[in-house]
């Protein structure tokens, strides 16, 4: 069974979502639930920290595609941070850097949200 978990840190108006383990077609629904929970509470400023994510397949990437529009319609965003080279390469292959802001560190991503205010 693929091991995957998320945890969320509240940081003012921003929520940081930490991903851990293996994100594939089996575990993607767990990330969908996490995003749904945030959206339902009107939490649209989301930073996703990939530091502890070991693996991602297209099913995982699809989750980001599924939520981004609704989140941006509500003046929010999903900003990505702390990816390993291996995970970044997959995002890069599919052209995600054109559509998502990807930062080296969580602090930079949080700062970007704060600058907009």
């Amino acid at each position, binding site marked *: *069974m*693929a091991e995957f978990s998320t945890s969320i840190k509240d940081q003012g108006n921003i929520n940081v979502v930490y991903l851990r383990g*293996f994100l*594939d*077609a*089996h575990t993607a629904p767990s990330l969908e639930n996490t995003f749904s929970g945030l959206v339902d509470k009107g939490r649209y400023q989301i930073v996703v920290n990939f530091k502890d994510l070991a*693996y991602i*397949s*297209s*099913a995982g*990437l*699809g989750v980001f*595609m*599924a939520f*981004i*529009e609704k989140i941006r319609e509500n003046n929010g965003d999903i900003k990505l941070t702390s990816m390993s080279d*291996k995970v970044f390469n*997959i995002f890069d*292959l*599919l*052209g*995600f850097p*054109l*559509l998502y802001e990807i930062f080296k560190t969580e602090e930079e991503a949080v700062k970007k949200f704060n600058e907009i205010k």
Partner: protein
Amino acid sequence: MTTSKNISKEKELLIKSRTENLTIVREFVSSAVEEVNAPQDIAGDVVLAVDEACTNIIKHAYKFFPDGDITIKLKYSNNTIIIKITDHGSPFSPDAVPTPDLKKYFEEKRVGGLGMYLMKSLMDDVHYKSVPGKYNQVVLTKKLNSTN
């Protein structure tokens, strides 16, 4: 239920069409490519491509029916890894899947097709064969000295 057997430089894994088995698939492919001393980045590409192929079979060929068979045969010869993945679900027409345009996907909120695009990007060759009423097969080829 899963079984695996070792046939000289050929390895075989049989799984049922459930996403929970993707971990077993990745571990099988990972250990097989490790045995042929594939560089780590190529090993990672092969593992992901096979995951994507099996995910597509589970979702589209078997439409999440949990008891379909998926056979993965991995062979290594002439510095080339060849993986044949066979299922007995609905036939698949790769030509019907357009190459994704991410901007368009974003606008249309579509999230499919990414897996096949990844497979084609990561492998040297992706070949589909469908014998209606019998089986579907996708053959992934990756050369070890490839920079692709």
